[in-house]
């Protein structure tokens, strides 16, 4: 299997911050509808696709939403005040271009700071580049969301894009659905909503599917850059099997299952302990009487930035691991 750059570009370039997942849901539905037995959208907006079987019930989950900004105030000069949707820090976005669903753009600017004054989100504003109050009034409203405006870019082994988190998880599930293994297992592929604002979609999807085993597909940080993050995961080190983050300690049975599957099938893997963050597996494993859960993570540099970097080979290893898990006894 080769890396399908065209598909990943399409997924990553799609505008769909948390709570506004309509666009990405339509793209994914179009991609997978001919390959699954059932497909539905639940009341929160999760897309739940099913490959039917009589065996073990397995849920895979990747979130469709991406981080962004939400407009809180529009003034007549065309300056927009905003708050963050998901984890975005003020100091990391000054000077970045943002794009809205309607295609219009704005630039994140900062008020003049006094000596030693702390930079907070309330000091920032978006300049939409217009001197025409009518244009501003007509096209920008409170509640509108915008996302990073950045170009998809590739090197021979890596991909740089704005929403690897977690469109790469969606990508992996789509590729797995298209080449779904022969198995008795009853497999649910969830494309969840609102992960970035508190893993909300996964909570309800986990409750409704109530599987025997759940595995989330999401990005994780790496310790191989110069950004000071201390961990063992590295780009190009293969699929990362998560052992702990702030939302979950991986069930030992699931740790052993994923490890054994990787070793038996010569899938390149690495163990991951993440000291911050969480995934869809967080709420899912605490559903009802508890659901043994794990995460297959995609090592990613520059998480939650406009240019997240992933390794294509890691992605292919993740797809392999997902598929053998889907067919596991």
């Amino acid at each position, binding site marked *: 299997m080769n890396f399908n750059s065209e598909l990943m570009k399409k997924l990553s370039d799609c505008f769909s911050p948390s709570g506004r997942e309509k666009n990405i849901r339509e793209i994914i539905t179009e991609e997978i509808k001919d390959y699954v037995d059932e497909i539905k959208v639940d009341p929160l907006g999760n897309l739940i696709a099913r490959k039917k079987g009589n065996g073990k019930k397995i849920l895979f989950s990747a979130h469709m939403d991406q981080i962004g900004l939400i407009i809180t105030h529009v003034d007549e000069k065309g300056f927009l005040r905003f708050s963050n949707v998901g984890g975005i820090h003020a100091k990391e976005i000054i000077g970045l271009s943002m794009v809205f669903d309607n295609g219009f753009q704005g630039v994140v600017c900062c008020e003049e700071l006094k000596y030693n004054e702390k930079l907070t989100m309330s000091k920032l504003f978006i300049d939409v580049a217009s001197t025409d109050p009518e244009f501003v009034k007509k096209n920008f409203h409170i509640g509108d969301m915008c996302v990073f405006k950045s170009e998809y870019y590739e090197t021979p082994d890596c991909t740089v894009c704005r929403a690897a988190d977690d469109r790469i998880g969606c990508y992996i599930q789509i590729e797995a659905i298209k080449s779904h293994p022969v198995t008795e297992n009853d497999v649910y592929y969830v494309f969840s909503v609102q992960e970035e604002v508190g893993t909300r979609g996964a909570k309800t999807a986990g409750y409704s599917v109530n599987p025997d085993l759940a595995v989330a597909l999401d990005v994780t940080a790496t*310790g191989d850059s110069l950004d000071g993050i*201390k*961990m*063992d995961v590295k780009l190009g080190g293969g699929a990362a099997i998560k*052992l*702990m983050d702030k939302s979950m*300690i*991986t*069930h*030992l*049975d699931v*740790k052993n299952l994923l490890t054994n599957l990787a070793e038996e099938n010569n899938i390149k893997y*690495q*163990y*991951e*302990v993440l*000291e911050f963050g969480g995934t869809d597996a967080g709420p899912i*494993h*605490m*559903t*009802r*009487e*508890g*659901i*043994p859960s794990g995460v297959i993570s995609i090592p990613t540099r520059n998480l939650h930035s406009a240019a997240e970097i992933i390794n294509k080979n890691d992605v292919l290893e993740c797809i392999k691991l997902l598929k053998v898990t889907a067919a596991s006894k």
Partner: protein
Amino acid sequence: MIKEFLFDVCSNQIVSGFEHANGSILTKYFEHYTDSFERDKLGSYIFKSEGTNDKKIMLAAHIDEIGLMVTKVLDVGFLSFTSVGGINPASLVSQEVTVYGKENVFGVIGIKPPHVTTEDERNKPLKLKDLYIDTGYAKEKLEKMVRVGDVATIKRKPLQLQGTVVSAKAFDDRACVAVMLETAKELKKLSHKSSIYYTATAQEETGYRGSTTASYMVNPDIGIILDVGFGMTPDMPAETAHLGKGPVVAYGGRLNQKLTKKFVEVCKTYNFPMQYEAIPSRTGTDTEALQVNREGIPCILLSIPLRYMHTSVETIDIADVENTGRAVARFINELDNSDLEEILCF
């Protein structure tokens, strides 16, 4: 018996997330006083004592302890680690630890010599990322025994101080698992009509996770949450509870007022010592999970006073454990003989 149980269970490693693998020691003690046993899927142990009516009372005390988890085997053979649950890095310095890898590996956590520690460094709080486990092994050998994700605990044997005061790691919250054991023993003598679920919950230290799933599974009419509370030392505020003066009864929004009142009445009637505390919002216990599970569960919260919480020298008075266990048994017996609907209605 309570001391034997406590010393036994605290000599074992049951770090959050590892309850499944290591908690079976509980059955040895609880099976004498209970009828059946099951687990939720996260690792909580639920011992059931059958009743004669259709009411269910769930006791919850968490079995997991805080610990360390290996994040990286470093080039020179040291281990980087993070915490599982809340740990003050200062409490780790100069400790011996056991790393539970393929085999148990012993190590120590050191700190830079004072001679080369600058004034600036001395004034800053220590961080976990500044500390390492030193095992003495070369990297090649260490990698064969320890992997990322393996856990470690401080290596320390339970200590008998004076009288009934004892000290160990993991009395948070095994002191209260011992309370449940005492209650089970007492109720065997007193009899009960409700079915009692003695639940040693998993993963409390990482966010009340086991009690969330276990209480969903049990779906009780009443929850009795047992956890440790802060015990008095010279540096603690005046309202802090004292060791040896009985369970601390909590008042606050998370707790059911009438049930709490009933417990206080029972203690007064039967001359059990007790203390009080006010918890306006978050209790930091399994109550967080139980109160809002399913349709909601009326709860009371009782704490055993404990000094030096989340260190390896957690100190309690066994008399508090025994008194609390007996008071809870009497409370259940009295509840069974009262009109529960009346107590629970607002």
